[in-house]
């Protein structure tokens, strides 16, 4: 097996909140291979976005990171500022949740696209313009010339998100990090944006870290899904396997909480309670207060992520029991 494109090794990220440092990502490891699409799924505040920002070192001031972020074996956490900027400019691009807030409102979308092409790519003005039109066509914008002239305020959210994707592709990156790229958009537009990502994956063999709170969305796009809770990875499996046979009660809960159209359901099951903030994270397994499988041992320390299947990892002490108990329930369903 080849070395992964990106590897996170035992990453812990702490943010300063009211004068103290609190971990928002805890002992997290993950790998992304070339051309692979990895989903990072979790509820709001689970640390997904902070994981993404840790990779590109886009954390708020005073944040502390331990562990390693290896891109082709080069540790980004130790990289000098200039080299890091080169990585951001050429190798890893990022797309954010709210394009309206994440694109400078004072410049046209043409300025936005061409800034990247000219500054990072060294293109001339006319070359950059031609390339920008090409990129817009790639993300399904037909009247590119008009969009290039338009200010963000004059474009719809879906259109702006396409512009942001085009801007990310301008760098011709090896890895694309997409942080909830469709959450701020209408459902119909969501599907169009996902189709764009799917095309990028198939046609460009672009590796992606796709961050979402929506398991369904992750399943539509990702080869492999990591479920995150309270800053930790709870479960990691290939998408189909995860849906067929979840290994962690939290994943099972998430799967049960989604509405399924082809089944008659009395009511949606929801996981009781809410995820803890970094400040309130309980000792032991962070999920134990909401878990119906909880036992004494769950309270002693956070269970490590262990291999349960050939290609399935879970941070639950009772993974095998849960797998066996839940398989009949999920096994026939989604894949």
């Amino acid at each position, binding site marked *: 097996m080849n070395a992964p494109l990106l590897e996170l090794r035992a990453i812990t990220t702490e943010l300063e909140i009211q004068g103290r440092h609190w971990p928002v990502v805890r002992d997290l490891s993950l790998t992304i291979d070339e051309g692979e699409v990895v989903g990072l799924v979790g509820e709001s505040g689970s640390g997904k976005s902070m994981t993404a920002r840790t990779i*590109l070192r*886009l954390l708020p001031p005073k944040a502390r990171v331990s562990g390693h972020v290896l891109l082709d074996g080069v540790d980004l956490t130790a990289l000098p500022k200039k080299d890091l*900027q*080169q*990585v*951001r*400019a*050429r190798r890893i*691009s*990022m797309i*954010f949740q*709210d394009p309206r*807030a*994440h*694109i*400078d*409102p*004072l410049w*046209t979308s043409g300025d936005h696209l061409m*800034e*990247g092409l000219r*500054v*990072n790519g060294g293109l001339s003005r006319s070359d950059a313009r031609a390339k920008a039109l090409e990129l817009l066509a790639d993300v399904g914008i037909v009247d590119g010339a008009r969009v290039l002239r338009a*200010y963000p*305020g*004059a474009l719809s959210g879906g259109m702006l998100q396409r512009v*942001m994707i085009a*801007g990310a592709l301008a*760098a011709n990156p090896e890895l694309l990090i997409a942080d909830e790229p469709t959450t701020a958009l209408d459902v119909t537009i969501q599907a169009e944006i996902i189709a764009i990502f799917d095309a990028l994956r198939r046609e460009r063999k672009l590796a992606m870290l796709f961050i979402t709170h929506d398991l369904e969305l992750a399943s539509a796009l990702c080869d492999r899904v990591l479920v995150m809770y309270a800053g930790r990875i709870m479960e990691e499996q290939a998408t189909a396997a995860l849906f067929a046979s979840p290994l962690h009660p939290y994943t099972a809960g998430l799967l049960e909480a989604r509405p399924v159209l082809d089944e008659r359901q009395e009511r949606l099951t929801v996981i009781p309670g809410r995820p803890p903030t970094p400040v309130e994270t309980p000792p032991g397994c962070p999920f134990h207060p909401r878990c119906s499988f909880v036992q004494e041992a769950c309270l002693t320390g956070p269970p490590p992520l262990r291999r349960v299947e050939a290609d399935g990892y879970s941070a639950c002490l009772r993974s095998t029991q849960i797998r066996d108990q839940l398989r009949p329930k999920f096994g026939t369903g989604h894949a």
Partner: protein
Amino acid sequence: MGWYVVRRLLGAIPLLLVTSFIVYSFLHLAPGSPEQVLLAGKNVSVETLQAIRDKYHLDDPFLVQYWHWLTNVLSGDLGDSIVFNDTVVSVVAPRILPTVELAAYALLLILVFGLSMGIASGIKRNSPLDTSVSGITLVGSSISTYVSGILLIAVFSVALGWFPVFGLGTGGLDRIYHLTLPAIALAIALSALVARTARASVGNAMDQEFVETARSRGFTERRVIGKHALRNGLIPVITISGLVFGFLISGAVLVEYTFGLNGLGALLIQAVRTKDFAVVQAITLLLTVAFILINLAVDLLYVAIDPRVRLQRSSA
């Protein structure tokens, strides 16, 4: 955009008319008859009195008087100064340049010190620099131009003898030397206002998501701040710059009086004290028209810089 400029220019005309009307009507609002007001209580012959009544068309209805006055003003005739025994224009005109020089000098200081302090502390918030800027601006914004002016005279002119106490000097470098303390006095409070505004707005812009996007694209910090954070952060500074010019004009009046500079402001105060009403009207009108036009320019600049406002207003 072009159409919007035309519309705004036309829109300023009613405002200019109404303000000039108010300035004119003070002649009638003031206690005593208009000719007495214009004569500042001097005893003159019946012929002179009638000459004034004729010149101001005081026998005509009020609006007709105003119309005559306005057309005279527009053709460059602002009446006569009873104190100087000369036309208002030849009394006022030579005073314009020193005031403009003073204001320009102060504006330069405000931009160099106030704006840069505000930007620097907005970029590096909660740094020692930021804390000291906050302290300086709090005190600075509470000290009026005349207080700072007098204190500057006390320290740098009287106690240390570095700068002249009064007057404009002979021109050239000497003029700059003479205008330095007045310009500093005028700039202190306004620098504080500009610095506070810039600190807040640049600081706010630094927190905006698009700044994160620019960083994520691998741009240098210099570019991230210069092209994105600053441009957005300076929009509120442009919107308050109309206010800054207003205070600059009012402050210039006080500073000229404090430092005995023969500009428009000092002349205005002299005219008020000697009841030289035609001169008061002329200077008030001049400064108000300048203020209205500056505000108009600021507004157009704002629209030119911020596409969101442009979208909103061109559709309105």
